[in-house]
């Protein structure tokens, strides 16, 4: 049975901070992920609906894209900029995350709160060096996405709310590769790469992989191996090998640990080649 005894929908940040910061009451915002647990298993006593705080938006400025934390996953699918920019990976990742109905209720904050069904969205954020904005009443702090995801729920102190995700523009190329049981199934392994190239030299690389470790993460050793190197097929092979070697997957019914590690390499190779070809093309 759901523990929820109270429901609040604060109209402003001050009351949101107050309600969320109340001591002694298990209080949490309503955050639906793309693989939500049943309402009866939601464990907060006070459910806080943040929908009146104006967190459902997509804005663009010269630095990049600002995504309000309560923007639904479907908005990522529908908003043209996510198809046209970043080589379309945000659109694709959002589409893979769930079917349309669930995408209409799952929010970015929900996704970042529970990554179990949205590995590919996490990868796109990791590969693009997104930054999260955390707000409590009028005070705002920022954190790089990688650290935010690594620390998990401990990130937010009482009264704090994930308010926005910023994705910086860059001149690089992105590519997403995945393997799954069926076209719309959750990925077994997915890889998103980002390459910033100067001629054929890789000046910056991001390689983020899901399904090859307990949660989606950047593979720093792969990135290091790529950066400051000339793009070449042997470099790609080396990156793929490192991805397989660095993988610490947990096997399950979708794929064993051995397979996942192998796919981390295979898909890293493919994603790198795809990114290179996109740059060339």
């Amino acid at each position, binding site marked *: 049975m759901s523990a929820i005894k109270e429901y609040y929908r604060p109209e402003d940040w001050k009351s949101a901070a107050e309600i969320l910061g109340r001591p002694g009451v298990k209080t949490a915002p309503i955050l639906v992920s793309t693989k939500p647990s049943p309402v009866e298993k939601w464990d907060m006593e006070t459910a806080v609906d943040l929908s009146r705080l104006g967190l459902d938006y997509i804005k663009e400025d010269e630095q990049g894209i600002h995504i309000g934390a309560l923007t639904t996953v479907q908005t990522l699918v529908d908003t043209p900029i996510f198809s046209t920019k970043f080589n379309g990976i945000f659109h694709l990742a959002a589409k893979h995350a769930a079917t*349309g*109905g669930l995408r209409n209720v799952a929010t970015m904050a929900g996704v970042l709160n529970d990554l179990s069904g949205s590995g590919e969205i996490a990868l796109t954020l990791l590969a693009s060096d997104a930054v999260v904005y955390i707000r409590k009443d009028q005070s705002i702090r920022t954190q790089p996405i990688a650290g935010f995801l690594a620390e998990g729920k401990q990130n937010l102190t009482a009264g704090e709310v994930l308010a926005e995700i910023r994705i910086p523009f860059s001149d690089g190329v992105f590519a997403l590769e995945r*393997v799954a049981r069926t076209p719309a199934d959750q990925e077994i392994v997915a890889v998103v790469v980002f390459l910033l190239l100067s001629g054929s030299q890789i000046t910056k690389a991001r390689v983020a992989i899901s399904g090859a470790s307990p949660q989606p993460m950047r593979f720093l050793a792969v990135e290091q191996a790529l950066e400051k190197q000339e793009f070449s097929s042997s470099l790609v092979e080396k990156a793929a090998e490192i991805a397989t070697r660095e993988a610490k997957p947990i096997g399950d019914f979708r794929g064993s640990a051995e397979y996942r590690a192998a796919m981390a390499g295979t898909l890293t190779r493919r994603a790198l080649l795809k990114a290179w070809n996109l740059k060339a093309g």
Partner: protein
Amino acid sequence: MLIRFELNKKQTELEVAASETLLDALRKAGFWSVKHGCETGECGACSVLMDGKLIPTCIMLAAQADGHEILTTEGLAEGQDIHPIQKAFIESGAIQCGYCTPAMILATKALLDKEKYPSLEQAREALGPTLCRCTGYVRPLEGVLRAAAYLRGEEVPPLNVKPIPVEAVFGPISPASGPTEESGFEPSGGVATTTRITTAPTLTAQDTTVVVGAPETKVDAVKLAKGRAAFTDDMTRPGMLYAAMLTSPYAHARIRNIDTSKARALPGVRAVLTYKDVPRVIYASGGQSYPNPKPWDQVSLDNKVRFVGDRVAVVAADTLEIAKEALKLIEVDYEVLPAVFDPEESIKDGAPVIHDEPDAVGIYDAQHNISATILAQTGDVDKALAEAEIRFERTYRTQQVQQSSIEPHICITYWDEDDRLVIRTSTQVPYHVRRMIAPLIGLPVSRIRVVKPRIGGGFGGKQEMLIEDLAAHLTIATGRPVRLEYTREQEFTSARSRHPFKITFRAGLTKDGKLQALEMVAIEDTGAYGVHGVTVCSVAGLRGLSTYKCENVRFDAKIVYTNKPVPGAFRGYGGPQALFALESFMDEIAHELKMDPIEFRMNNVVRLGDSIPIATALGEGGPVPQVIRSWGLAECIERAGNAINWERVKDPQWRFDPERPNIRRGLGMAVLMHGTAIPGLDMGSAVIKMNDDGSFNLLVGATDIGTGSDTILGQIAAETLGVPLSKVIVYSSDTDVTPFDVGAYASSTTFISGGAVKKCAEDVRNQIFERAALMLGTTTEGMILRNERVTTPDGRSVTLEEIAHHSLHTKDQQQIMATASHMSLQAPPPFGAQFAEIEVDIETGQVTVKKLTIAVDCGTPINPLTAVGQLEGAVAQALGYAVSEEMAYDQSGSIQTRRFGDYHIFSADEMPEIQAFLVPTYEPSGPYGAKAVGEIGIDGVAPAVANAVYHATGIRLRDIPILPEKVWRALHQSR
């Protein structure tokens, strides 16, 4: 708390609890179109439009709806009006069980509000969120496009299905000289002909059937399209209690003690039942004919649990929340026992004994966990194998999959005003439930009434008395109505599934590829209980050994207990397992012999006039000899093969894609042959009575589980009685009102229940003729009943209304009515061909199915629209069986795939193209020439895909599902 929102364009206030979902709040308020299919937002059945967007309401608090605009299907069109989208769905055959329909209609509205000219791709996207287990999405997608045309104001032509000319169905012959039913199965030209000859009494050769063979819309379609309260749960009773079930966390344990005192003390709890509270009556829960096949190894509540998810206790309380809270307060002292999950381990000496209870009846060898065995043979297999010029042996494995009907198991039990127990339940077998539950609850059959309303999909999962006994025990304990429904998680942990098999085929052949001997050795995993185990296994043997002509055949099988959730009936019932093995095996042999796989099959396949030797030794209800009297296989292969462009199989270059070097393309096929009903066992019956206006009530025990059987049976009655379908009022599946029928299983309804309806209608027609003769002062000689009018050879006529008035009110008053039963010793097999086109990614092993084509000879399709719908839906289920679906367990036997998101059934936005064709033949033993169509479509996708993977890559996968990892491993091994 009070919420205010606009609901179906009306300002609405609802009092809700803070923890209540919007789904629960809407249903409580009587918006029954909003359905429950899961708790995790993944099936879409609960969807509404909120501010124009489709959202699942099970994953939302009701309070969140405050201030928003909500539209449910009830809000689309009021009263008897029909919204164009509803009309389009009805006409296009998009509605089978109808459980997903309201959500699909809303999804369509959301799309069409934005897009006047939607593409097929947009339609697929729009329906993506709503899982449908019945249709394969083909007809719903047509529904979307048709609706768009209606909303644009276009004229939409009726569906393009012509009525079946009597010449085609019955043969161009005069009634006086034509062959009789018994002799009437000669082909009318060539081996591959679709036409069989027999006579049709009272019809002339120039006629066409009017109702039979027409794509009539389903008789229940309007209420389903409108989301009316038609399903078990779409009602409430005063004082109704909510039940919840406690299940075992251990795969094998003895319950030393259960303390329910804290649970009972929780305010609002009205009853807590454990093994201490209900009588220990041994039974088998499969919905099957009397006496249920052994073993009988279950009791309602036991002091031993045999799988994770097994029943432990059941609670009834004022609310579901209280009932679930009470479950947490039940203290169970388990003595955990060693468990066994692999049937081959299970039969070894020293394995844990799963059924050590002394009172189980009919277990073959409890000490070795062998529930039953089967040995059936004809001819001399050993000799034929020994003498064969070529021998082959291969072993295949199939997995456990779940029926996944979108409506979970649900029943409501209550005492009526005469102290009789009413069981309103989502079942395929109301009569079996009534008979089987009686001894468990200590009531005579005469005090039990089972009613089956509309049911949200069954696929075999509801050929079972799964939860009715628990609800009934609670109603008896409390005196109050009780509602018990499974959660989606319980559907995976505690409902039924498909038996996993290990099958070894051995074949002996002549050098030129003629089959001389065929042996099938099977180990079937029946999980913790033996229910359906032996009958599924016998069907597997029948299916595996019937398709190809061979005098020397043997089936040798063990049905083995393990500590896993219990398999039961699932569409195909042993057929899909057997045909995956058989059709892979045939492909392997053909390739080894360097023969064309189709030619090799056709050299060996059974044909018109052949007998089926294994049927003389094996049968679900005992052996009954069978002869093929209708056979359209060759044309099926041609139709489905052409549709997939099979010719490409001969072009080696086609397998490669120059643009995508990691892709290999492949084509594969499988021959299909299924059964129709259980010969000598299945029985259906019908009652027809005539009303004042010349309409008829048709009462049948047959159980429409979304397949359209009410419609088909109505069509058979209407055709025979010369009236449109609208003049036949069909009522089914109510044990107090309708006559007996075994229920919806074994591909029997059209054939058996349809046979009963036809006989019954013929009897009524004779009474009508007699009344007409009385009225016209003539004899019945040469009378014809057509267009609601009886006509004499000299041209005089009376209408049915006049006849009804005369018989009911005027002279020699009489209720024109009849009853008839039908049983058959024939089980005429439908034939078919399944083709698959796939792509294999040779780096990841991912197999993507691009296209599936199927053609089936089901005799006369009584309703081509519903028949094709059966094939499309079955093929979609079979696709999951082939490539992705699997009930997966951890080391402790606990299931890992507990939600749709993990189990994953195919959604509309990822389906390959499906093309289904009907190849009509005339089956002399079936009503209007019909045989079965409900199950055959599920048999062939897995072998066709496996054969296509072989074509694409040269690797042979002998176990399903064909997951990326398996392909990847096999590719690695082959390198």
